[in-house]
């Protein structure tokens, strides 16, 4: 199979309603608890999205029918901290969230999100607060996230610039497959390996401690 057949995630532009989640340091254990990680698939993870916070009532924003379809999540600072589980962006995307706006994202979450076409949009605290208030007052208020222009158009018509890592942006705009890109560098990797010896072979070490070697 050639990499040309691989469908890489795309993100160009998104317009939609915003779900307000005014909590700081939302960790990936909240986004999807560990009990939902006993799977070998990446499908169907919306069932575990914010499982500890979702309930029968409408207390939690995504249980509220007015916000249930919103594709943009507006969250407090340091979103996605903690565990490296890529199940977090998979669960958000499976639910229908395609962009998250926060003042700051944890490094591993941001990397995982971008690889799956979930856009982390970094905004100032003032802007996040105003988006949050707007979304609370009017659940139908829509924002546009434009990755091509790197512009967030607010419901009140203001255009705010944001930046995304240039390589991740190109991957999402052009559908570049990151693994295919890396594999195209295999000649350089092979010549690096020719001068980069390691002192062990993990297979020998495992065999030795298993009694397989003297």
């Amino acid at each position, binding site marked *: 199979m050639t990499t040309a057949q691989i469908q890489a995630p795309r993100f160009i532009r998104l317009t939609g309603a915003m779900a307000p989640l005014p909590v700081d340091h939302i960790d990936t254990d909240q986004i999807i608890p560990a009990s939902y990680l*006993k799977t070998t698939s990446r499908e169907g993870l919306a069932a575990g999205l914010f499982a500890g916070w979702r309930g029968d009532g409408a207390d939690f924003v995504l249980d509220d029918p007015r916000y249930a379809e919103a594709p943009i999540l507006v969250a407090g600072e*340091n979103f996605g901290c903690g565990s*490296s589980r890529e199940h977090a962006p998979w669960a958000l995307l499976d639910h229908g969230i395609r962009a998250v706006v926060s003042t700051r994202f944890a490094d591993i979450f941001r*990397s995982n999100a971008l690889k799956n076409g979930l856009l982390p949009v970094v905004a100032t605290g003032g802007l996040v607060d105003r988006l949050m208030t707007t979304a609370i007052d009017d659940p139908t208020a829509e924002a546009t996230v434009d990755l091509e222009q790197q512009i967030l158009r607010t419901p009140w018509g203001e255009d705010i610039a944001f930046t995304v890592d240039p390589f991740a942006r190109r991957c999402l705009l052009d559908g570049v497959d*990151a693994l295919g890109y890396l*594999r195209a560098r295999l000649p350089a990797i092979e010549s690096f390996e020719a001068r980069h010896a390691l002192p062990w072979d*993990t297979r020998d070490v495992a065999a030795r401690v298993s009694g397989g070697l003297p």
Partner: protein
Amino acid sequence: MSAAEPLTLFEKIWRRHEVVAPERDGAPSVLYIDLHLVHEVTSPQAFTELDRRGLRVRRPDRTLATMDHSTPTENGVDLDRLRVIDGAAADQLDRLAESCTQHGVPLLPFGHTNQGIVHVIGPELGLTQPGMTVVCGDSHTSTHGAFGALAFGIGTSEVGHVMATQCLLQKKPRTLEVRVDGQLADGVSAKDVILAVIAHIGVDGGTGHVIEYAGEAIRGLSMEGRMTVCNMSIEAGARAGMVSPDSTTLAYLRGRPAAPRGVDWPAAAEAWRALATDPGAPFDRRVQIDGGDLQPMITWGTHPGTAVPVGGHIPRLTDVPDANRPSFEKALADMGFEAGEEMRGRSVDVVFVGSCTNSRLSDLESAARLLDGRRIASGVRMLVVPGSQQIKAEAERLGLDAIFQAAGAEWRQAGCSMCLAMNGDRLAPGQLAISTSNRNFEGRQGPGGRTLLASPLTAAAAAVAGHIVDPRELG
């Protein structure tokens, strides 16, 4: 590179592993990975992706798999029994075993004498060595930085990238030196140091950075203590934490199964020592903490940046900036605590000694010394979960299991266990645990459970007293 240019440990490792430099079009560096550690939870979708593309694990000789997150720690539960009581967990273990066979990846499976938490067994086998790059689909991969390695957690897409190419596309992080000067007081351990560091720089204070820990207090830590410190770097947002290699590092590695032997040893030792950060090397940021002032620490809130001295109190509302009050009040409500309250004297239900942070032999010894000749308080459940089967065997040789059991604690099989409560070891709703693990996130140790993070010594003292107590009061 001029010979006179002073470099950090991080910079030396980065330069030696950069296969392709950043390109003008914004493409990041191609970074070579020496050791790829794999476990059952974050790898199956990566194996699926390889299969979908018709690819194989390119360097199985630089890859090692084990099972730790989903494995039961209850004595006597084997894979056959697990298939009955937790089919999903057993399927995950079976899937890893099948994938490893298919791709030729060495596996230390559930039940093996060298199975254990992935961040415990890499160092234990001597695979983690100074100057190496180490990754795993697990955020606590930062643990391995204690050896002067560049080690960081990755997501499952990147697990697939490393499987297929042994490389990652990486943007170079910034550097942060955290210097802990002075000598730690008795009763103050590596766990207290890192909880104090996170409280100082903030739960996101290390975002975008690699931390190098330096200073007299860090130099004075054992390798196990340095692993505890580096392990929790991610809890300050830093993907990696490191300590420059020194004689402590070499002494730990010598004689390990994967360590260089014979004539290779002196050459390796000399090369490793040369990796240490040069005097005057530039860091993007520096932070300094006086180690002599540190106290045993404990967290009160729902993220690891909320540690206070065990004898201290929860911040008062007036201590908290307006912007942070909603989150502060939410954390208090989740924990059932009030602003300004003392931590000492609070009753605990469960004590957990274990996890990749504090499950090594010296952690178990520290808890056992305090428990020796004592009983845990009635109504308290205490679980002791060694980090690996090798540690379990060594602890049993030393008689630590007998001390724990005589005190009324449960002595269990190796694994991640109640750190993330994925395997059935979990808190009941409402229970308050003092835990030697790394995360006190809401519900992390079981839905409705509440977690206080502390050292093995402080945890053992709470088990005996039945409430939070400064371990130095028990002598």
